[in-house]
Structures are given as structure tokens and as C-alpha cells.
């Protein structure tokens, strides 16, 4: 199959790469751009380990064909820190031990960021439903939820 030339923005940088029409955005990010933060846990959109933001919306990149990304603005876990300053979610995940093996963590961070970008004051239930598309087998989700709650507090600028 011939490969299409795709141009888009990833983590704020203009990028371009080649991909055949049946290549997923996930594989393009990982194999063409070397951004291996997004992971393949299932390849069928059921685990969320491949979560990225496309034009601000949460997506499973394994379900997006690479050519569909033409012209869009993609954010992966590699792009949510500000230089060497971690995003509050990344910081609270570390402090709150919200990761054990870490394989689901990039996807969870992206999904949590999508939530907080839209809803800065979520209830515990809202957090749980927003993350229901991200499977974690190590943590039982408890420390993940608590870390998202703490990040929400910090993002609002309230110091406890």
C-alpha cells in the first residue's frame, strides 16, 4: 500500500510523516515520530492506554487512521509538561503513588487532563466516569482518583 504524507501539529510542534491508509495514529506516533508514550494495550479502543487529545478531544489513537490526523492538533503525554515543569497531574500522580507499573499512566493522564480542562471542579463520581475508559490493573484506581482530585485543587490555585 502506498503511503500518504501527513502534516499536523503534535505537542505544539509542526510535524510531518508518511503512513499508509491502514496505519493507526497510535502506530504513526510511536513508529514514525518516536513518541512511545501512548501505548497499545488492546488495539480495539477498549483500554485507553493509547489516549491522546485531538483538537482538544479525548480519543483512542488506535481507532484513528493516521491520515485522519491531517491538519489536526494532537497532544500526547510527552506534551503536557511545560518544559521541565510537570503538569500538576503529573506531579500529584508521583506524590500520590497513582502509578505502579506505569503502562496505563500516559493514557490516564491525558484523560484526566481532558476532564480538568473542561470541568475544573469534578466530583469523585465525575472523575470515575471520565476515567472509565482507561483500564488500570495495578492500582484499583483509588490513588489515581485521589491524585486527580488533588491536581484539580492545585490547578484552581487553592493551597491546602
Amino acid at each position, binding site marked *: *500500500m502506498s503511503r500518504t504524507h501527513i502534516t499536523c501539529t503534535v505537542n505544539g510542534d509542526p510535524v510531518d510523516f508518511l503512513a499508509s491508509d*491502514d496505519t493507526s495514529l497510535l502506530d504513526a506516533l*510511536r*513508529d514514525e515520530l518516536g*513518541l*512511545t*508514550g*501512548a*501505548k*497499545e*494495550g*488492546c*488495539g*480495539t479502543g*477498549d*483500554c485507553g*492506554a493509547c489516549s491522546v487529545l485531538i483538537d482538544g478531544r479525548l480519543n483512542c489513537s488506535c481507532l484513528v487512521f493516521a491520515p485522519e490526523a491531517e491538519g489536526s492538533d494532537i497532544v*500526547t*503525554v*510527552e506534551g503536557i*509538561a511545560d518544559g521541565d515543569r*510537570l503538569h500538576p497531574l*503529573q506531579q500529584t*500522580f*508521583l*506524590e*500520590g*503513588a497513582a*502509578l*505502579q*507499573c*506505569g*503502562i*496505563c*499512566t*500516559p493514557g490516564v*493522564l491525558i484523560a484526566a487532563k481532558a476532564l480538568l480542562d473542561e470541568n475544573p471542579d469534578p466530583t469523585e*463520581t465525575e*472523575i*470515575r*466516569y471520565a*476515567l*472509565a*475508559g*482507561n*483500564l*488500570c*490493573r*495495578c*492500582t*484499583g*484506581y*483509588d*490513588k*489515581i*482518583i*485521589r491524585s486527580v482530585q488533588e491536581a484539580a485543587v492545585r490547578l484552581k490555585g487553592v493551597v491546602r
Partner: protein
Amino acid sequence: MTVTEDRPTYKWVGTRPIRHDGYEKVIGKARFAADLNLPGQLHAAYLRSPHGHARIISIDTSTAAGMPGVKAVVTGADFPDLDPTDPNFDVSVNVMARGMALYNGHALAAVAASTRAEAAAAVATIQVEYELLPVILTLDESMADDAPLVNEHNITRFVESDGPSNLATANVLERGDVDAAFAAADLVVEREFDTAFVHQGYIEPHGCVVDVGPNGKADIWASSQGHFMVRSLTAAILGWEPSKIKVTPAEIGGGFGGKTTIYLEPIAARLSQMSGRPVKLVMTREEVLRATGPAPASQSRVKIGASNDGELTAIECWFGYTVGCTNDLAGLIGAMSVASYKFPNLKLEAIGMLTNTPKTAAYRAPSAPQAAFAIESVIDEIAQALDMDPIDLRLKNAVVEGDPTAMGMPHPRIGFVECLEALRDSDHYRSPVPDGAARGIGSGFWFNIGEQSSATVNLNEDGTATVITGSPDIGGSRTSMALMAAEELGIDVYSITPVVADTESVGFTDVTEGSRATFSTGMAVVNACRELIEELRARAAKILGVEQDAVTWVDGTAVADGHDPLPLAAITAKAKSTGGPLTVTASLNAGGAGPSFAVHCCDLTVDEETGQVTILRYTATQDAGTAIHPSYVEGQMQGGTVQGIGWALNEEYVFDDEGSMENASFLDYRIPVASDLPMIDTIVIEVPNPAHPYGVRGVGETGIVPPMATIANAIARATSTRMTSLPMSPPKILAALDTP
């Protein structure tokens, strides 16, 4: 929350620093198995059996070999045939079939090509001639008198046998006289139970990249719970020397026991050798579910006798586990150990039977969850019948130090009573059960193992330290190593760099399993630090011009009367002049692993119209001995609990009549998600293990043992219906409620 016995005050042990490997993991830089790409690498794909059981008459890969991009093709013929009595025979057959497809999903051939698509296209052209054979899928089918053989090479372990059969193992433990005790008991409860196959469900599929050079040296990058095991099994299956194989551990995306064996590496190595190119081999999720080890399904009969005042006098159990297509032996022992109670009269019998399903693998406390579901349910029924509080009933019968285990040896110092008391006194248990809800209690334990570990501690010129171990970090253990080293050396935990090194750079270390890493590798780290401190005292003595006996080590400093203290950095700066580099390696075959007990409590509701169970509140207590890093101890407790909740309420393999798994995806093999659950509250009990310098007990496995009974016991109290079949999914609950 932690409940602690009197113990020393530690400066570092028991604190919660950010883990050393955390930053890479939150910025997406940590490298897991599939994250490595080597120049010129090929991608490999498998041909897997579409039949549950078949003789392979012929495999024709000639077309595949000529397809675009294809550089190598292998079948069973490309691997040496081990003798059936070789301990690695079963694994060698499982990674690539030899003349027999033993389950739907069994690897029959593999192709390496320039792209995944080319490899898959080539696989599709492989022609196989099969002679279909009867498919055995259940315990009853396997045990039937005239049952066909699942695996013609299976000889029963541990007992005499006349030849191949479907019986994998049989174990019996007894003490006292159960018949007399039952006859004398005031109350006897007997129930039958069954559970389904469940998968460990790690989010990262198995993966590796293998590069075999022209000198026959293999470089393996793989995610595994034990890279020395990867080396030895790969060597055994290929007939290569282990010294020709180097394994570098990738970060591992979950294991839970499922990555204590291998599937891919010998295949990738052979393809790499044949093609002269690196080979990347990663399983799809479907392959993980169709072809990697689940935990056995089971049936059981449990009979318990008690006196009217709640003394549990006798227990008789029969457990039958279906263990897949080849022998799974040691896993059955967990069932043997479930007697957490004094039971003066005991008879426990467990068998393993073969089925044409994937070879089972360990899943946290292998075989104990199935047994605990049954035993803890019957104990709860007895509590109900005697109108006794379920915690009080357990307290009355709980084993303490000196009581015999089911296997006869006396228990060492253990914390079962402490866990029961902590739960009884907890806010959860003292709160009233919410309206419309019901509460269940369950307990469990795992004895944990020690085994071999090595550790090297290098002191750097600036007074920092590098701690090198060989235990893949599946839950934060490398920071626990750093905490113990910090405590020993008396330096800041961030002055320590913990490293998990490859098979050429650290001494032999057994697999991270059996909850052994913090215990056994931790001991090696402590021993290395203590030896290093002796050397530091000697160096300090030289620098200060005193006898070594005059020097003590306090808080990272050499202290001698009449001299200013000499901090570690001052000594390391003079390493060369005082004798040379400061480095020590310690290794051991650790004994004295302490059992970890747990008691769980759950409040839930049952919707009697839909059969849906909603967990409102869950508390887990567990004895960690000493929680080196409490956040990661809590994490193990919470993770194990939620896996148990999934096992209890929803997870199961669904096979069609021919042994094809019908739900081989995360859509239909549905594990718990965040919206299914409340917070999982933890109470960490610390009854130090006397055999470990910091009192550590392994904690990784016990958490999965209590949840199924805990939930079943709550459902029984919510609905007056005792669920005896897992999973307790909505259709099954509705059916049970409808049954008079």
C-alpha cells in the same frame, strides 16, 4: 492508616518518597517492551491453531517463505525436541507446537517480515493439515472414565501412575480424624462451589525485541517478571548456552504472575538467527487472552464442622482445578495452605486436571483465591447459623504463632489476629451497615517465598550510592531497595540510585514472584550495605589514624572519640588512597519469608431486578511486617482487591464447544473500571517478620485471596441467597434469586 507493633524508629523506612523511576513514567519516556525499535528490525506474527485439539499432519510454509518482505519462517521443526521428562518440556511445547495443537490459540508457526502487515499476510498462506481430536474443556470431561487424553505426554506428578493421563497433580493433607469430628460436631455445613478461568489482565501485552548476532550471541529486550528466567528458559528451549544470551529487562506493564514464564523469546531468537536481523515480537490483546496463562477454573466441595460455641473442629475439602494443556504443578499448593484456622481435624485434597485450554500460569497467590472463596463462604454460613459475629468467629479460631499450618509445620510469628482486631475496631466495621446494603467479611493469606537474590552497592566518589539488583520492579520495589539502603548507609534516599540491571551486570536473581522482591532482594541489599559499612569503618580508621574497633557508623558518618565525624562523602573522596573502589556484592538464597494475612470487609447492594452488585464501601487490612514504602504497600493491597472484585463479579472465559474463546478482548473480558468502584480503604498492619532485618513480609499476593468470599458473604446477607459459582454476574444472581 497503619497499625504498628513496637518497632524501631526509622529515618527512611516507612516514608513515602516519590519513586526514583516515577518521572520517566509520567512523561512517557519509560521504555516498556514494545517501546524499543532497533535499526533493520523485522516484525513477527504467529499462526495459531483454530482448533481446540488436533494432530498436525503437515505444515506447509513454502508459500509464506516467498511472500514479500518475509525473511524467516519457523515451526516446531526448528526447535530441538526436549525429552518429555525434562522440566522445561511443557514450556517448550507451549511456545511452539510439536505435532499437536493442544488448544485453540496454540502457536503453530511464526513469520518474520519487514512489516507487521507482510508478516500477517504470509501467515495467512501457511497450509496446515489437521486431524481433529476430541476437545476436553471441563473438569468433568477431563475426569470421565473414558476421557480421551488431552496431552499424550502428561504423566501425573507426585503420585504413582500407570502412564499418561489427564491428571496433572494430586495432593492430600490430613491430620486428626475428620469423620469422628464431624460425627461429634453440633453443626456441619457442606457446600459445593465452582469458579471460571480468569486472566491476570495486565494492560501490557507480552513483547520482546531479540537481536542474534553472527557470533550466535543473543541480545534480548523483554518485559518479564524475571529476566534470568527468560535467559534460562530461552536457552533450554533453543538448546543454546545461557552465556550466549543477554537479557535486558524492559519496564514491565503488569505481570501478577502471568509473566513468570515465557512465550515469545525463543521464537524471536530463532527468527533473528535465521534472518540475521533483529526481530520484534509483540502479542496482540487477542493473543494474550487466547494463548497465555489464565488462572485455573475450579470446582470444590467444602465441609466444615463446628461446636455451638463457634469452635471450628473439622474441615474436609476436595478441590479440582483445570490447569490447561500441560502440567501445572506447584500452583496447587496454595489450596493446601488455606487453613488459616486451627482445625484440629483436617483433610484437604486437591487435584489438577488437564484441559484443551491455554497452559495456566500463576495469578497472585496461585490456587488460593479459588479455595478461599469456598472455605470463607462456608465459615460465614456457620457464623450465620450460630448467630455469631463473623470476625468473632474467626478470632476464636485464628491461627497464631506455633499453630500448625495445613502442611504440618508450625506457623512463625504471624499477624492474622492483629488484622481481625484492626478490622473489628475500624471505622468501617463500627459504622452501621447503610440502609438497603449488606456487609461481608472474608480473609486469606499467602505464605510467600524467599529464593535467590543478588545486590551490588557501589559508592560513588561524591558519597552517593548506586544499588544494583536483578528484581524487575512491578510495583515500586526499586524505591524500597533505595529506602532500605538509605536506612543502612545513613544517607538521603535520593542520594541513592536504584537500578534493575541486565543478566550480565548483576548476580543471579530469581523471578519477582511469590511476593519475594522486597523481602529477599531487600535482604541482599541490606547485607551488601552492612558489608560496605564494615569497609567504610576500616577506611575511616586509616584516615583518622585509629583502630577499626574505635570507629562506629552513625547516620552516614564514621565516628571515633576525639575526632571530628567523617561523613560518607569524605571517605569516598579518598577511596583510592585508602584501598580502592568501594563496592560490595551480596547474594543469598533467602529463607524465612513471613506469611502475610489479610481480612477484608465490604458493604454492597444487590439490585434484585437487574442482578447488579454495587460496592459501596471496601476496607482491606493486611499484615506487611514492615511497610518499607507505605504507598506501594497500600497499592498492592488495593490492586489485589480490585482484581479479586473483578474475579468475583464479572470476569470469566467463555468458550464455545470447540474450545474457541468467545470473549478474547477487553470489551467482553471486562475487568473493573474506575466507575465500578469506591475508594479501597486500607489498614496496613505491621507485625514484623523476625527473619528479615526490617521485618518485611511480602504483600503482593495476599490481597487477591479474600475478595470473592467477602463479596459472596455480603450478597448472602443482602439476599438470603448463597452464591457458590463465580463470577457472581447479574444473570447468575438473578437466576439464583429466582430459584426457590
